């Protein structure tokens, strides 16, 4: 797993003189807008200029200050807000989880892992047994020390019939969690899996106190202690003075949500919040050009797309799927729907953000109405109904664009807009044509295992390709890089295009989206980990205020 490439220009790849100009300008106290105007004058786009300035400011202001308060607004909250890590599904839950709890392992910006509560972790030779040694100086907020029992309890919540965990499938291949001694636990796997540490770095696997059943409060080991938790209103965390490592920079964080995107952006612009999740791509220009706030965009493998169920018409007709794929105006979607904050997709869930596992050699499908017409004619289909919920920003617009293009090839693509709530239970995987959005997963294997394995619970299109399934398991034990790359490439081609014999997955993935969030210039120390908003929810412990 190698580092990812940010698709935005950074200070690093600017010419030396440009960089110097910017840095000296900033040091002299030039404001953002001035610097941006220099850059734009030099020919940079506004978005690029904004990003350059942000990166430059980031590099410039490197020494964290202590103290202050940070207010973060997510996009959704409500009565289902929970402090139970196992039930976490939303950004606001993940952010809270990161504030009040810790994991065994922590994911770096490049998707490699580092120890967190596990002082060190190691696998046996074929990655089928992992041992985690716990730190001995860790205390829960109630003062009790962290022991192996807490870890075993936390992990056991992801198993069994009574488990309501939203991540149980991720660790389904761990046969047993074994306590070795008071501060050592062992995971015995069903087969080799090199990805276990990154999986354990994902939000649901936070360590809670042994025997915890009441989640109205959070007794974790995290950098903040819970001061207030009002579901659907706000949560407040106070810096944990007895944290086991250096600890948070800010004294207090407030975690809330503003569901209306215009209101959320307004709150950022007016300085009422410091960090906001999910900035509408169209508002980027405005945020970039406003003093005191900036855009935090992190390229990722997250994607959205149209699912054509392969077990029923029209998705069971590969030509129909191909027609839908060829009418996608992928570049336009990236440019005007995502406002450049994304990358072109190739009906492949894996992109460059996953590093070496991405099959770079595949030819990206161009917008080609002739080919689309050809396939549509072959399929004999003239009308279809697509269920759309705006589960990712820009999804509806993307579908509307598809609707227009479909009309041009003689396909009457009806768009039925359905509400977000209830979408996953009633529409997704149940109606012939629907949409999906996936966050980036810690590895290509995890991603494909979740959504494309023949027996996967969340196989979007109920696509069953036995050979794909076999390869997916086999590749976990392969250590040879080129062999591995070859196998991943074959799998990605199966998903994207299929063969004459075995049709593709039925997924139409026109684009991968960046995580685009907004932040005040006064808040620094946000990471670029690409697994979630604002650098993979890592900010609470590490952010700091420049005005503290």
């Amino acid at each position, binding site marked *: 797993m190698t580092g990812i490439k940010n698709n935005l220009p950074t200070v690093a790849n600017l010419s030396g003189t440009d960089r110097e100009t910017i840095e000296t300008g900033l040091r002299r106290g030039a404001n953002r807008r001035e610097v941006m105007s220099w850059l734009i004058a030099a020919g940079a786009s506004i978005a690029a200029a904004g990003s350059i300035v942000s990166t430059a400011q980031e590099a410039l202001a490197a020494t964290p200050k202590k103290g202050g308060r940070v207010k973060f607004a997510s996009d959704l909250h409500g009565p289902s807000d929970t402090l139970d890590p196992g039930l976490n599904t939303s950004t606001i839950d993940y952010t809270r989880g990161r504030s009040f709890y810790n994991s065994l392992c922590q994911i770096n910006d490049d998707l490699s892992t580092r120890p967190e509560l596990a002082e060190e972790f190691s696998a046996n030779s074929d990655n089928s047994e992992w041992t985690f040694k716990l730190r001995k100086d860790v205390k829960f907020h109630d003062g009790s020390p962290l022991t192996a029992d807490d870890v075993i309890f936390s992990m056991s919540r992801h198993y069994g019939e009574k488990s309501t965990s939203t991540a149980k499938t991720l660790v389904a291949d761990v046969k047993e969690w074994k306590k070795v001694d008071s501060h050592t636990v062992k995971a015995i796997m069903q087969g080799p899996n090199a990805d276990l540490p990154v999986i354990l770095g994902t939000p649901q696997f936070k360590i809670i106190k042994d025997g915890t059943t009441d989640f109205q409060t959070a007794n974790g080991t995290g950098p903040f202690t819970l001061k207030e938790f009002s579901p659907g209103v706000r949560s407040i965390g106070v810096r944990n003075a007895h944290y086991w490592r250096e600890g948070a920079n800010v004294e207090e964080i407030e975690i809330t949500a503003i569901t209306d995107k215009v*209101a959320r952006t307004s709150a950022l612009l007016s300085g009422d919040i410091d960090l906001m999740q999910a900035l509408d791509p169209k508002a980027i220009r405005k945020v970039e050009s406003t003093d005191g706030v900036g855009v935090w965009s992190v390229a990722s493998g997250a994607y959205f797309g149209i699912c054509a169920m392969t077990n029923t018409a029209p998705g069971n007709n590969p030509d129909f799927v191909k027609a839908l794929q060829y009418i996608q105006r992928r570049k336009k979607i990236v440019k005007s729907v995502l406002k450049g904050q994304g990358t072109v997709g190739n009906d492949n869930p894996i992109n460059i953000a996953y590093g070496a596992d991405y099959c770079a050699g595949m030819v990206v499908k161009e917008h080609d109405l002739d080919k689309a017409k050809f396939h549509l004619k072959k399929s004999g289909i003239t009308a279809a109904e697509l269920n759309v919920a705006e589960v990712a920003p820009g999804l509806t617009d993307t579908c509307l664009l598809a609707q227009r293009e479909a009309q041009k090839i003689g396909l009457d693509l009806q768009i039925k807009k359905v509400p977000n709530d209830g979408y996953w239970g009633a*529409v997704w995987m149940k109606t012939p044509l629907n949409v999906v959005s996936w966050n980036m997963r810690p590895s290509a294997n995890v991603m494909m295992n979740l959504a494309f394995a023949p027996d996967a619970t969340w196989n979007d299109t109920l696509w069953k390709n036995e050979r794909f399934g076999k390869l997916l398991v086999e590749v976990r034990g392969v250590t040879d890089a080129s062999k591995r790359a070859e196998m991943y490439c074959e799998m990605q081609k199966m998903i994207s295009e299929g063969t004459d014999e075995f049709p593709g997955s039925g997924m139409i993935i026109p684009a991968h989206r960046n995580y685009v969030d907004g932040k005040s210039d006064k808040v620094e120390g946000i990471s670029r980990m690409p697994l979630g908003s604002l650098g993979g929810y890592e900010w609470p412990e590490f952010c700091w205020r420049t005005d503290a």
Partner: protein
Amino acid sequence: MQRMVFQRILIGFVTLWVVSVLVFLMTNALPGDVAQIVLGQSATPESLAAYRAERGLDQPLLFQYFSWLGNMLTGDLGVSKAGGATISSLISGRLGNTMFLAALVALISVPLSVALGLLAAMYPGTWIDRTLTFGTLALISVPDFFIATFSVLFLAVYLGWLPAIANVAPENTFWEMARGIAMPLIVLVIVVAAQMIRMTRAGILNVMNSPYIEMAILKGVRRKRIILRHAFFNTIGPIVNVIALNLAYLVSGVVIVETIFSYPGLAKLMIDGVQTRDLPLVQACAMIFCGTYVILIILADVAAILANPRLRNPK
């Protein structure tokens, strides 16, 4: 009169019960259940089953309804099926917020709109009347989310006078509180007052048809006195009724304002409850709204009785 009020209260309870049945049936007709919503995209059949078992959702619907009804009657609102918090804890703070905002809006808008409505009725056809009529019309003719968003952009983002979101937290100082609540207050006053001004004006002009108004004119009574003393007292009944309906709206119907200003109130909670299929929460909110409505209507009736000597002092 007591008998009448008692009758209304009894009818109110029947209405409450009908609402509980109606809401129960409707929420159960929604696609998906709370387990599916909470677990969302990451639901598996097993985790759904486990969630349902844990929250008692696997019991028959009728049983759920009657156990809810039973608990409700003993004052136990139950536990949120979505987050597990007790409903009373979810509601208590928000109820306070909602009532606080509604009360403030009412305090400002009721006198304001009655005064402006009277003013318009006093000078029908003049520029005052036309300005008020047209202004209130324009305000009720635009969707409220437009007014709310526009105010945020203008007052908070462009002028920077007020916060964009409503900050009401216990630790806030009075000044912070006042600033924090100013924006939703302004928007709601505008929305509600426009309606009430129109109704007050219409109510007065309606009474202006009566022979006793003509008599007052023929007694040489001044315009101001005709409106304030002769017409207004006979319009109190309908005006109070409109006020009650508007107050009920302030308690239950201000979803859009609560959403845009991120004001933690009951209306948004109920919408969230519907969206997460959190039946006990929806039921509890519905009961509060219906109860508020019933109480306000009864109060309006009582006010109308008190304002009407015919009902106040029977022969």
